[in-house]
């Protein structure tokens, strides 16, 4: 038993819904109580989908439990088939139905429905949403994809995009354009937009592009083993990764192609002098493993940030995450408890957080700028405009995404010079944000806000046991908010290292000199 308030991932049947909702011509019959229908709104509200997810819930009630929940399942299955006439069905249980052990797969099999019925076994009490999506996609592919002649032209399938994914809609489009520009055809994109008939012709491709390992890797592995389709290992997020990905695809195709980089702007945007101020900005990266790992590389190698924290919530990918973190000189944070993440962020005192909607809220509480780079996301992270994160346009989007939350270069200097100006004071935040600026205030548990800029009368005891003398604390307040956390942390670390127990103004500036770069 574990006490949870907010979760990064839903239950595994929500993962199955992400697959079913992304597809066409597939219907999901889910043995579940009425309250589980809340999951529909994830798709219709957060993603603004214009049709109901193709899911029929049996909505059994307490009075059915002693009676015939299996019969209820059968009639729901039959009604769903008659009404929706899908090309194929998936059937399974939610957490409650798993306990009553009606075996939806077995029941559906005996019904003799005239379409393939694919049973799902998704253990609700040990696994989560991404597993559910990955496993569901695997089962669909296993049941429907068959060996067949390859297309005459070299072609690939794109694997892994689902409903409710972070920018999946636009990543698919961007990769399709990119791949086609190399003279390679896209055979099937799945699950996003695919019908069961499309799944059946996946075998015609020569190779697979694994876009999202979280939701497509099991299928990629099965396709490799069964249909001898190799799959790409690089996820094309960022400039270097996109170039490596192109190399990988061309190698699989055994051909060469002229790569059009004319639309790629990130490298020049980063190199131009206005971006100098981005150098060494301390950034904390957390999300699903694929996005977090890719963004850590982009942040360090393509924007020039310093990555001071890195981790993911999906344990399935702990191993590669740990390896990458080590390369960054960090210990990976692998946890699905948002409070652990919040604590790690507070301790690292970054200048920017790249995270999920959970970290957005943490960032708001801590007064740190934040950009969302991974699921789970909320309605505002499904933009109307085209904004992929994969490929060259994705790299451009990432430059904007990572830089927008920050104070602009020149503004940063002005804030430092006129730190006491009444309307230019640092708590006003970046001028291009209006009312959405991160705030330099902390919220206490009653929800009331109190400014942190009050002059302390008493020495302030820091978390590491050193004391800030009032004058030093006041001096610290004069440092703009976006570097204040770093200054505090560096000074405390310096004091601890020197055996200083009371931080004076002197100590503050000694530390500043010590860490100067």
């Amino acid at each position, binding site marked *: 038993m574990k006490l*949870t308030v907010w979760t990064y991932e839903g239950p595994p049947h*929500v993962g199955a819904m992400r697959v079913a909702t992304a597809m066409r011509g597939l219907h999901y019959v889910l043995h579940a109580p009425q*309250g589980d229908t809340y999951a529909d709104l994830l798709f219709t*509200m957060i993603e603004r989908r214009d049709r109901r997810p193709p899911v029929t819930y049996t*909505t059994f009630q307490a009075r059915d439990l002693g009676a015939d929940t299996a019969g209820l399942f059968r009639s729901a299955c039959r009604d769903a088939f008659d009404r929706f006439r899908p090309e194929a069905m998936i059937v399974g249980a939610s957490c409650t139905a798993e*306990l009553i052990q009606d075996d939806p797969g077995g029941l559906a099999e005996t019904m003799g429905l005239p379409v393939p019925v694919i049973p799902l076994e998704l253990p609700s009490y040990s696994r989560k949403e991404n597993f559910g999506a990955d496993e569901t996609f695997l089962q669909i592919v296993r049941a429907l994809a068959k060996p067949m002649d390859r297309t005459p032209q070299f072609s690939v399938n794109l694997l892994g995009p689902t409903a409710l994914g972070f920018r999946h809609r636009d990543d698919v489009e961007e990769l399709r354009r990119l791949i086609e520009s190399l003279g390679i055809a896209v055979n099937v994109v799945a699950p996003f937009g695919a019908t069961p008939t499309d799944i059946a012709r996946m075998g015609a491709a020569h190779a697979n592009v694994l876009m999202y390992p979280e939701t497509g890797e099991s299928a990629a592995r099965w396709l490799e083993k069964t249909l001898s389709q190799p799959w790409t290992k690089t996820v094309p997020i960022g400039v270097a990764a996109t170039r490596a990905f192109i190399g990988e695809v061309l190698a699989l195709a055994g051909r060469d192609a002229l790569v059009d980089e004319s639309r790629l702007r990130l490298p020049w945007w980063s190199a131009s002098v206005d971006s100098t101020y981005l150098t060494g900005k301390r950034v904390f990266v957390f999300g699903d493993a694929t996005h977090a790992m890719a963004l850590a590389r982009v942040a360090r190698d393509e924007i020039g940030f310093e990555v001071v924290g890195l981790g993911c919530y999906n344990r399935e990918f702990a191993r590669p995450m740990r390896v990458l973190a080590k390369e960054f000189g960090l210990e990976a944070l692998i946890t699905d408890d948002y409070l652990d993440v919040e604590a790690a962020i507070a301790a690292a005192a970054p200048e920017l957080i790249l995270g999920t*909607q959970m970290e957005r809220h943490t960032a708001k*509480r801590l007064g740190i700028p934040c950009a969302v780079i991974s699921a789970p996301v909320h309605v505002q992270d499904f933009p109307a405009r085209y904004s992929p994160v994969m490929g060259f346009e994705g790299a451009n989007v990432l430059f904007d995404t990572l830089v927008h939350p920050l104070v602009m270069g020149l503004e940063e200097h002005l804030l430092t010079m006129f730190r006491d100006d009444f309307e230019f004071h640092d708590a006003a935040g970046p001028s291009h944000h209006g009312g959405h600026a991160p705030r330099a205030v902390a919220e206490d548990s009653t929800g009331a806000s109190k400014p942190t800029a009050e002059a302390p009368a008493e020495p302030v005891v820091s978390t590491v046991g050193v004391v800030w003398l009032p004058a030093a604390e006041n001096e610290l307040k004069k440092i703009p908010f976006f570097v204040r956390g770093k200054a505090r942390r560096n000074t405390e670390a310096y004091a601890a290292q020197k055996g200083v127990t009371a931080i004076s103004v002197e100590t503050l500036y000694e530390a500043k000199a010590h860490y100067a770069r």
Partner: protein
Amino acid sequence: MTDLAPLPAGSGCRDVPVLKQRGQREVFCGLTGIIWLHRKMQDAFFLVVGSRTCAHLLQAAAGVMIFAEPRFGTAILEEKDLAGLADANVELDREVARLLSRRPDIRQLFLVGSCPSEVIKLDLARAAERLSAAHAPHVRVLNYSGSGIETTFTQGEDACLAAMVPVLPATDARQLLVVGALPDVVEDQMLGLLADLGVGTVRVLPARRSSALPAVGPNTVVVLAQPFLGDTLAALERRGARHLPAPFPFGEEGTTQWLAAVAREFGVPSQTFDAVTAAPRARARKAVAAATETLRGRSVFFFPDSQLEIPLARFLTRECGMTAVEVGTPYLHTAIVGPDLGLLAPGPVISEGQDVDLQLDRARAARPDLTVCGLGLANPLEAEGLTTKWAIELVFTPVHFYEQAGDLAGLFARPLRRKAVLKAGVPA
């Protein structure tokens, strides 16, 4: 006292046959009530004993309202808890002890049952007794079920309040008890009106703090502020209280009738009644009239959601000039919504329960001007060209009594006004 706001003659929809269908129900479970109950009861914590699904439901229903530290959480059952029940109890005790030591401000703890905890027959009543003894007197631990196999959406509040009734102190005093969670500002307006009428002792359930729990007894008269509180009412009646049926206080007429029922019971002179209600009645009528320009002559179709449907249909048809096509409710408690049903002119289909696919077919055939439905159905119906109002907003927004009558009408008018304003046209 019969001259206080006389009711029109006729039985309205009281005796019309009710359409009952059984199929997929597209509704929330009772856990959802925690979203507003934990804001209302400021020293209470709601601990759901459930699955990852339950935690995810609460998160989805709470939307972006992420509070610094919300006073609810889910103890997620894991495989090892399902293996042996003894373990689950030990684990629960440990989680509760940890929670209470971290949150000394908590004075009431609700253990909230879910479908999984009900199916594995985890005895939360016994757990609550055990934990109450362990953490007395500082914290009182109660339990109720918000599971989807037993409760629909607002029935979660009913189950919660019903669980509180046995621990309410006893009293013989003559008093009015108003039952149902209202936003604080609305509750204050209501208490102000009742005080001006000279009703005497008025108590509310739920109270904002556990130290202010109302008492109950044979001279307690209960009036409901929300229509979904059947079990709570039954529990109060078992404690000797008497139910005062009334139309619900939505709109000018509903509020007046509700107050009139109380006034009759407590012998309020008609001059006093008129003096107290005249000004707010006029204000409410004026505010409603603004929205009525948009609503008059339009048709409305209710999917079942919160049990507020019958009183709201009464408001929309009688005060806003709409016609009701179908009024669906998850559960029709005639003893409670009877007065509203009686005021609702015959015509609409009254349906209880749901087969959502069949009901969608009816809505598509009727093509109402406004469809009141849940969040899962709204955008899909909009995409089919219908105009919708999310039902959940009616539960999360202050809508009761005179001063909110205009806001309530406005909630229904806004989608229609918006449709009229937008000129871009949705590409097919």
